[in-house]
């Protein structure tokens, strides 16, 4: 097995995730795309852990999974709050930051 086959798979997933973040207007979909990105990073970490023969990559992957769970929890709570106030979760309508 080549190192690169995993790394490039991760890169592809990452870029698909990036596309999703940019293209989607539904906040839940954006969160899903972010999950894709996080998973690609985890894949990288595990591949490097095997390559370097250390456990550190596993630890980081586990921590990322935990943080991702926390992020989804808070993120969906935010989405819920936005929906309750606006009856919509379209990100385009949330443009108070407009300069």
């Amino acid at each position, binding site marked *: 097995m080549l190192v690169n086959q995993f790394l490039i798979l991760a890169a592809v997933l990452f870029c698909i995730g990036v596309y999703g973040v940019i*293209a989607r207007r539904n906040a839940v979909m*954006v969160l899903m795309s972010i999950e894709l990105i996080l998973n690609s990073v985890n894949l990288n970490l595990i591949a490097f852990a095997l390559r370097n023969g250390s456990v550190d990559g596993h630890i980081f992957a586990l921590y990322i999974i935990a943080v991702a769970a926390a992020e989804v929890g808070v993120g969906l709570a935010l989405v819920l709050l936005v929906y309750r106030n606006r009856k919509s979760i379209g990100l*385009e309508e949330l443009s108070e930051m407009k300069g």
Partner: protein
Amino acid sequence: MFAASEAAAETAAVALKSGWFLENAWIIPIIPAVAFALIIFFGKKLPMKGSELGVLSMVATLVLAGGAAFQWIDRVNSASEGQYIEPVIRSWNWWQSGGFDLSIGQHMDGLSLTVLVVVAFISTLVQIYSLEYLRGDRRYTHFFASLTLFSAGMMNMVIADNMIQLILGWEIMGLCSFMLIGHWWEDKANSRAALKAFFTTRTGDIGLLVGTSILFFSANSWTQEHLGVSGFSIRGLSAWALSGSPGSVAITAGAFALFVACIGKSGQFPLHTWLPDAMAGPTPVSSLLHSSTMVVAGVFLVARLFPVFYEGMNIYGSSMNFITLIGGITIIIAALLAFVQDDIKKVLAYSTVSQLGYMMMGLGAGAWLPAVFHIFTHAFFKACLFLAAGSVSHSGSHHSFDMKKDMGGLRKYMPITFVTWVISTLALCGVFPLSGFFSKDEIIDNVGYAGYDIFMIVGLVGAFMTAAYMTRATYLTFFGEPRGAAAGEHHEEAGHDDHGHDAHAAGHGHGHDAHAAGHHDDHGHGHDDHGSHGPHESNAFITVPLVILATLAIGAGLLNATPFGEKWENMKKWIEPRPVVVGDVDHASVGEVRGFRTADTLPATQDSAVSEETVLTEETAVAMEEGVSPEAKAAPAPLMATAAPAAGGEEGGEEAIAYAAEDGHSAEAGGYDSHGSDCGKKTPEAGVCYAPYVKHAPFKWAKAALSMAIVFAGLILSWLVSVQLYTRKRGFFVGLTQKNKLLAAGHAFLVNKYYLDHLYEKIIVRGIAHPIAKGAYWINQNILDGIINGTGIGAKGVARWVYRNVDQRVVDGAVNGSGAVARGAGGALRPVQSGKVNQYGALLFAAAAVAGLVLIIINT
């Protein structure tokens, strides 16, 4: 292990004594920390609202610190001449993460004990003083809680054995300083001053973090290898700095970064602006934090890591470096500023800044001992001055601090305050034989002796100015005719607003209406007690601390009275680290050769990084004792190991033997002071140095007489001018600054504090806060308008006859065009700020992609 090594130590001729207080000095900061928690949680329910806990904890720390100091003196006396007096270091693992060990512990030596005793002592007195000064205050309990926490932080910093612990204490102090300056935060000026102090010192603290990291990453491997401690350890850093192994860039950068933190904390130029504003806090706070203890933290840090600065700033043998430069500038500019202040506390604040400049300058020139001694003496007389100023405002001037408006002639009403003030003033000016003389004059003398000639002159000029501005303040406060509140005037309506507010810059005309209500509540007592009658002496809670401090202001200097000969130089003996080469302790002590060492006397220093507790001192004593051969013992030999093999753990035994220095060396090394030591000059061949060699100027009465003459000239001249100016109102002096243009400009320059505040607030702060908006606005106002106007004017000027043909089109075109360009640029950038998250994301990732591309191009 403990008992065994102690037994071994008893038999040693050169073993160092220790004791319970010294070994357990780490308890000292814990006491006020616990007291703080108790005050916060239960203080309000206690009969004295928590203040008794604060005072009790301070007394307890004072006792412990005093005990430790006595045992340290014992320890020094038990050492042979020229022997390195190992500090009492203990450390525990605090936490570790990913192979990154952080310890917490104590590093007790002369320096830390000196500052510790000063902090404990002044804190005790100030807390007693505060019992009366803040009686009936709205946040009485919180005040004592903060004051106690401050002491805990400072003591923690002082005893810290590593940089992380030091930073912890340093930041606790910063926090307490903020809370105490803003104690009466209802007044906007106070909360502003608190914020300013906080932000200014924090600006410097970036340097502390950066410097600590630089030093850690460059020193860690060396210290781990040679001493078995981490790169945060103060002992390790000191040894590393003098080992000749650090690269000059690393240590210079580290020293500079650390010094930036010292500039912030110790109010050195150009970050001194926060300290005078910090006088907005209650007077006891000014006395404790902002004159005698917290602000010397920067000086303390330089003294603590002196080897690092010694190497990094190239102190030895140069005639100017960054530290002396900053110190020298600070002395002069702060002293100048003190002349134009009308607020008695601000005079003292600038005086403090100036004196801190002396300490820095001394340290920068290698006058370590005089600078540290100046910390010691300055603490007493400056605390006394502040408390006296507080006493004046408390009982004499109806809570005003304005010397010109509300004071004058108070010596008749407040004799104790007056006498203590005058004693402390003379001590501050450095009049023989008060304490200031023995420290300040030594600094000036040693600075000159070390080759920093310019700075000696700066020091003498500073001494002159000190004498002059203090005389001015004394005259305005205690002599002449009583004015304003001191004359017993009542300001029932207007006066309330003018003088009713306590400790802050009086007469600066800010928000009277806004805070008047708050102060009615806080200090209503003041008007009941004092408003009805004129100035009078304060009560015993205030005068007793004053008298004690004044006594010390007289006598403290005798602890290191250089003029009276070497016998009197006790401080030098007790606290100055001896610049001798110390055997590579850890490696020497694990040698296999010495079979008589039982397993449990074998110290755990080898793996001290992970051992639960490390008592270095006892082992060191043992190791030293074993290293010295019988001959060497007979003529008490220092551990100047000259022929030791290259340092290496395996060769510990050999090394130990090599410490048996030949007699020839012992004679030379015994008098390291006269012959000089190699520490700091050359790389020690074996073992390590913990302190660099510094020169000591021999005392000469002629030099002292010169500086005395300068001081008296300042005193007398200023007195005469003051009498003329403030009492007789002689025409020549009165309004001099208005009549002479140059003087007027200088006066305005000083009154505006060199416009530094303007620079910081108006230019830097706002520049950072709205740089783009401001820049765009400026371009709009100046350049675009300029183009439009210029074009318009030019067109008018050239000829009117083209008006109908060309003008109409060209100029209008230019005007419209420039407008369109501006609008176009704005319009082009505007969609970027769309507020749409997706587009931000697209920009983010596209930028990342471009950055990645650039990196690849660069690297291939």
